[in-house]
């Protein structure tokens, strides 16, 4: 119920409600992905990769949420989809299961602080201003204003570059999959 209300507020332009929603959803997603990954043995960083790709998909596909429906099942269905992709991708990369090293690896830090490798690598697929803007906001933690000043762009141009950059990031996930 609360999620639906936040989702509606976000659609009406309430960025704070949207931020709260995404923060709660990321906790929810982390739990869902961890539970589902079970035997497949996704490491903490892999789980966080899936959480991030799912958050990105939730953002770009939020038009498919129906206001009459609860948010949870919608989010869980997207997470399931992204998880299948992630496992497929992992299979292709033929990584040594991280489980084998569980005993020698230090215990993972608080997951929200965890920096994922995949998204950072994907950022390299972005070009020009889209790369500059998405990197400045996601890696350097700058806000729209600061980015606009730094790159001598208008706020509007930064927003456009951000939106296109996020779409490009999602399609980078897609091509990475192939």
């Amino acid at each position, binding site marked *: 119920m609360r999620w639906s209300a936040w989702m509606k507020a976000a659609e009406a332009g309430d960025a704070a409600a949207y931020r709260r929603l995404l923060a709660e959803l990321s906790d929810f997603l982390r739990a869902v992905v961890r539970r589902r990954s079970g035997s497949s043995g996704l490491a903490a960083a892999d789980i966080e990769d899936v959480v991030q790709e799912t958050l990105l998909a939730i953002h770009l596909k939020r038009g498919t949420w129906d206001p009459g429906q609860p948010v949870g099942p919608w989010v869980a269905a*997207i997470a399931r989809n992204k998880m299948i992709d992630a496992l497929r991708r992992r299979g292709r990369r033929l990584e040594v299961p991280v489980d084998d090293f569980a005993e020698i690896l230090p215990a993972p830090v608080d997951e929200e602080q965890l920096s994922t490798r995949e998204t950072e690598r994907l950022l390299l697929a972005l070009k020009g201003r889209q790369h500059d803007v998405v990197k400045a*906001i996601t890696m350097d933690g700058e806000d729209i204003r600061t980015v606009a000043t730094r790159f001598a762009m208008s706020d509007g141009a930064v927003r456009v570059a951000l939106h296109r950059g996020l779409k490009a990031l999602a399609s980078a996930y897609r091509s990475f999959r192939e």
Partner: protein
Amino acid sequence: MRTDALIEALAADGAKPRRFLRVFSVALAVAAAAGAGVFLMMLKPRANFLAVASSSMRYDLKLLVGLILAVTAAFALSRIARPGASRRGANLALLLAPAALAIGVLAEMAVVPQSEWVARLVGTNAGFCMVHIPLISLAPLGVILFAMRSGAADSPTRAGALAGLAAGGLAASLYAVFCNQDSPLFVAVWYVAGVLATAAIGAAMGSRLLRW
């Protein structure tokens, strides 16, 4: 990248989302108009296309089966494009068009002597029919696939095939207004072949265009 930084970026992107169902219903209207436009440019309705509607059940069935297919496939698309939406009813509804056609075929076989079955099935202009249904359906298929890109179907190939069935059903109904072969036996073979060809084209395109 840290997840909280990603959330900041997503929250900073204030672009208004477009509601999928709105995009999709507009697309369906455009697809129907595009199909009708293409049909009228390529072919013209048969001379008695209005009068025959009240006198021939075969003609009505032919029109109806295509329409039912278009509507039920569009309904299924509206469900599979939205994660977590229920699909059971939509999947069941997809059986309506084949069921209606099957009943028509059985009825035809019951009232027409066996010696005429083959002639009715082969009809005339079968190749023309098989080619024109996909041709009429291409523009509507493009419009529907484009709208589906704002959806989030878990299986792009299946979604593409359904888009092909929706466009193919529409095209079959339009073509039916031109075609003077009304036997359900003819429809069950040649119309179905044309629609399935469209579904195959849709599946191939969907597997590329509908990934997200």
